[in-house]
């Protein structure tokens, strides 16, 4: 075998190895962990007001971003999968910030001030945060 051929084979196998590793790691990209991301800090009331005033603008600003929201717990429940959900009150009694927690937390009490970080999914009746964790 000529030297040139050997080098070509070596380079080709390197490319395949590196490419394969990158593709494999991209495919197995770990799920997003909101705990490791810095959240946009805002109050529940302010977040709701922004969505009410201009939903498209608020979506452009907050959709899919980590949000660290502070507010008062107005309701704690479990969704159909049994996951804890926390509703934070806003200035409008009809709506609030609805957070679906990543892990169940039985210690959250209605009426207490909390800080929750989660990924903004948009607004239905409430602004919705998913994958949320309790910061305080």
């Amino acid at each position, binding site marked *: 075998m000529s030297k040139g051929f050997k080098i070509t084979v070596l380079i080709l196998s390197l490319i395949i190895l590196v490419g394969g590793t990158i593709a494999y790691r*991209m*495919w*197995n*990209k*770990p*799920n*997003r962990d909101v705990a490791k991301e810095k959240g946009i800090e805002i109050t529940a009331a302010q977040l709701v007001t922004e969505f009410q005033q201009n939903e498209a603008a608020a*979506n*452009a600003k907050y*959709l*899919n971003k980590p949000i660290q929201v502070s507010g008062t717990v107005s309701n704690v*429940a479990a*969704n*159909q*999968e049994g*996951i804890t*959900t926390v509703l934070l009150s806003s200035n409008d009694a009809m709506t609030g910030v*609805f957070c*679906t927690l990543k892990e169940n937390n039985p210690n959250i009490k209605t009426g207490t001030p909390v800080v929750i970080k989660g*990924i*903004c*999914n*948009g*607004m*239905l*009746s*409430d602004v*919705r945060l*998913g*994958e949320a964790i309790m910061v305080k």
Partner: protein
Amino acid sequence: MRKFLCSFILLSFSLIGNAQLFSTRSASVSFYSSTPLEDIKAKSSDVESKLLSTTGQLTFMLLVKSFRFDNEMMEEHFNESYLESDKFPKADFKGAVNNISSVNFNRDGVYPTTVQGNLTIHGITKAVTTNGTIVIKNGKPTAKCTFPIKVRDYNISGKIIGKELAESIAITVDCRYE
């Protein structure tokens, strides 16, 4: 006359009592795609739904960004290339349970239903009809149905349709009302 008025008022109240609006802020919607190459499923709980017991009116609305996949890359592709969830953050259904009169909301049981209405995904609205059930348990209804949809009907295109992603996928709605 007074008797008549009394019974009339009582009757109106009982009629109002019968017209119940059931709602939930945390229903569940999942979708399932299966091909020989890949099974893809994802679920969302950012789903609101309402059901009116008298007319059978049924609506649900969900946030597309809230679908969670086991595979993060698939989640990104789903949002960016296929559903374009920045542009179309919501999907919804407005319709009715056609045979709502066959459901006795006061008696626990499983009632087969036909659901018909308009489903909007990716900004495209299509008329859909499917079968489902309403289960009454302790006076509270749970509505379930599955919509088989053709991805291309909703103007969703991409290289993997027909390969990793099936051309027809199943969207399952499960609403447990309060």
